[in-house]
């Protein structure tokens, strides 16, 4: 089936193909991208599953993430240690969830994690303020930011505790038909 590659075993590629939304070719391409982030750190041979992690600072320099205001949060949400150092599995997982084939529910789960800055499983007012500041990059005055956060929570909060739980967030996502196309990074 084409060139014989020695980066992964066939079983590994099968496993990746079954567990993510990528094909074998895309997995190999992703490995190439991962490798070029830190060529001295990332081995070319993954057959014995080496345990190496690329640090956050290198990952957020990727062209796809560089200008994204949420790049740190995105990488942190997919890292096991919460500090943003991704192993190859986590790297693939991240782009798989952000690809266009991932279903809405899966994307909503990770979007919730990304916007939850203080990682308390709720989107409280501070989370919203931070989100808004990164979105608008200081274009709104502080009073406007406060107002938007209050109104947004009022709108989306269904159980009345003045913060958004995952259920509230998911319900709000269903109201926005653009979510699937905007929460998508092409790689």
């Amino acid at each position: 089936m084409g060139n014989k590659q020695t980066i992964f075993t066939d079983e590994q590629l099968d496993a990746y193909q079954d567990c993510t939304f990528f094909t074998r070719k895309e997995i190999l391409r992703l490995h190439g991208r991962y490798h070029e982030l830190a060529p001295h750190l990332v081995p070319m041979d993954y057959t014995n599953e080496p345990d190496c992690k690329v640090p956050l600072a290198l990952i957020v320099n990727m062209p796809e993430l560089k200008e994204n205001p949420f790049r740190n949060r995105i990488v942190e949400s997919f890292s096991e240690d919460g500090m943003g150092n991704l192993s190859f599995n986590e790297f693939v997982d991240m782009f798989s969830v952000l690809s266009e084939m991932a279903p809405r529910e899966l994307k909503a789960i990770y979007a919730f994690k990304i916007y939850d800055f203080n990682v308390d499983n709720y989107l409280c007012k501070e989370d919203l303020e931070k989100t808004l500041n990164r979105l608008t990059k200081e274009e709104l005055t502080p009073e406007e930011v406060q107002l938007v956060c209050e109104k947004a929570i009022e709108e989306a909060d269904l159980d009345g505790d003045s913060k958004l739980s995952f259920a509230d967030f998911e319900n709000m996502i269903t109201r926005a038909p653009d979510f699937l196309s905007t929460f998508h990074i092409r790689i």
Partner: protein
Amino acid sequence: MAYSVNICETDSESDFENLGESEPGQDSFQVVAEPAVSTQRCPQTDVFSECTRINTEHLTFTASGHERDETLSREQKKSLRRHHWSAATLKVLASMPSRTAGINNAAVIPQHARNLSQLDRHQTSSQDSSQPSRPMQEDSVQANIEEEICNEENKKEQLVSILRGLSVGEGMRKLQASPLSLADKMEVRQLAFSDVAESSLIRSIPCYSRLSLYISRTLHHCLFSCLPVLTSLQLWHSPIKRLSGRFGTGVLSYFLFLRTLLLFNLLLFVINGLFLVFPQAVNPPPRPHDSNLDTFTGLELLTGTGYLSQSVMFYGYYTNIIHKTCRNDSTAAESPDLPVCDSKKPQVVPYSIPAAYFFTIVIAFYTICIILVYSISKAFGRGFQVLKSNGNLAGKVFCSWDFKVIKKTSVRLQSEKISTQLKELLSEMLHGENQKSCMQRLCRLMLHLVAWVACLATIFLSAMTVHYLSESAIKQSCLEKTELLLLAAVVSGINLLLPGLFNLCAWVENYDSPSVLVYVSIFRNLLLKVSIVGVLCFRWLGRIAVERERCGIQCWESFVGQELYRLLLMDFVFTVLYTFFGEFLWRLFTKQVLKRNRMPVFDIARNVLELIYGQTLTWFGVLFAPLLPAVQIIKLFVLFYMKKSSLVLNCQASKKPWRASQMTTFFISLLCFPSFLGAAVSVTYTIWTIKPSSGCGPFRNLTTMFQSRQLWAQELENTHLILSWLSWAYNSLVENPLFLFLAAGVFLMVIYFHTQIIDGQRRIISRLEKQIENEGKDKQFLITNLQAIYERSGLVSP
């Protein structure tokens, strides 16, 4: 409205014992599908401990006496504030099913390492007042870490057992969509799917079923690997990625629409090519002796006359011969080259060109209709919204950032766009309608009226111009080469210049809301194009087809086909010129002369309407020029690259908001309703009523094109006995009005049932929305009262 909440206020005293094991609510109304099974065992006390910590922080910050008696007086409380809920209340809050179900489902439980590092972070930042409780919390958290680990293991086992119950394909999809980390997913996959293989190997199964298992497994594997390959083979994948990165979702929708149209035309081309062009090309008719054909100038390609008119391109080339491989004895004189039919040998079904022509066109239109209806219904289904609220501020905050945009300037533009939108929404929400004085409103009304009158007058004038030109061309000779191009040039010029004028009008009118502006411009542009196409249709079907002798045309269908060909080509030429002059030179002009840095903005609506217009002409012209889809394919292909480079060189991303998904739905419905429907109606009218020309084409000597199918059915009966059942089926089903009546009746009934079901569902949805609101209010009410009762009974010091 019946509430189905089981917790009663009077039972709140007895609830004190049950606090530790709050049962998952027996609400008849389930918000989340997956049950939170293990909430009793793991009451998420890390959340609870965070709550108390933040609680104490809040207390120290808001120590300046916020409304302490808020909880005691019910009338004063407005919202649920987390100021001073007691520990017990917080515990109840945290273990509510709606909170924990989401967490369990989302696998948002942090890893134990993250948990500890989190605690460290928060502990260093928390206030001194929480000091004494820290060691106790650490122990309890430690104990809960093990509980969380076991909870995760339970979840994995649950998933494995679910996957085993499903087929391989479904299981694979569910695994891909589960929110576990990739390493966990691989573990689950190994457990779930290799077990199946192992168990089937252990039980010695007979050879053939093992073989079939192997075959089905390989097929599944092939299918899973083929489908992604097909999608990655998608046309223009990387250019589209680059464009969406720089210009955003709005411009992306234009290029995706272009690609869709290309695929439609490809389908048409393949169908026509296989069943129509190829058989006719293989058996060419005898060439008529005509001196026109020998000279070849470049103008022929542009006008479609000359040697092109005697090619497979146009209707006139097609013969009304039925191609057989052998002949009957009786017709020996007609086709002496063919061998005599031997009744013992199997015969090939004769291929009738007229029938092929008719049925190919009809079936092509049916296929496209089905595809269009399917894509519209899909698009409408996606756009359906529950719990509508005006503004949708939260959705704007969370869902409007386009993650695909990577270029720095586009990112900055995007944040400006979002801020503008948020400011607009905010001002709308706070201040309501702008209160204008009566005089101002009157002025605006007058302005709108004047603009509308001007636009409608322009449209009427341009339609009249086209009509007048067409009439004068008919009065003189129809066949002057350069004059032929004049009509096409005038139509394309009108289509190019007037939309710019409409945009200018709309800009002068200064609409309040940008979406209204977009819709008004689209409507005016659409009206212009519809009126022009209408006038042209009248020219072709109402004048040329009927009065063909006056014009001196032998083959009016070929003539109409040539006109459409010319229109498409002229449209393309003018687009190229506009792209070059309009955008490139305008950019140079503004840069050098006006010294401004603003580049023109890509007008998505206008370009999409141009595409729809071209597609309408193609659909209408397929009957008269079967290879017209090929011309359209080439045109769209070149257009893609041209627009792409023009965009990259000359334009900048728009600041105005563009609701991509709504607009895409709108454009697809425009493609279906005026465009495809109009073309289909015109083609049906032509086939049904207009007499085909007697000198050329596959339908010569027939009264209408519609008759060809009856003749084919007869022919089929005569030649082939085995296929006579086909002709019988055709006669009794398709020709029989009773059957068609019944089929249409059943269809209408099914549609009616579906509409009623949707109505019922809509009513249920609004009832559920009300119930959600009431549940929220109930919760608020109960928690506040719980707190009040705690404090009153002295369990907690207020």
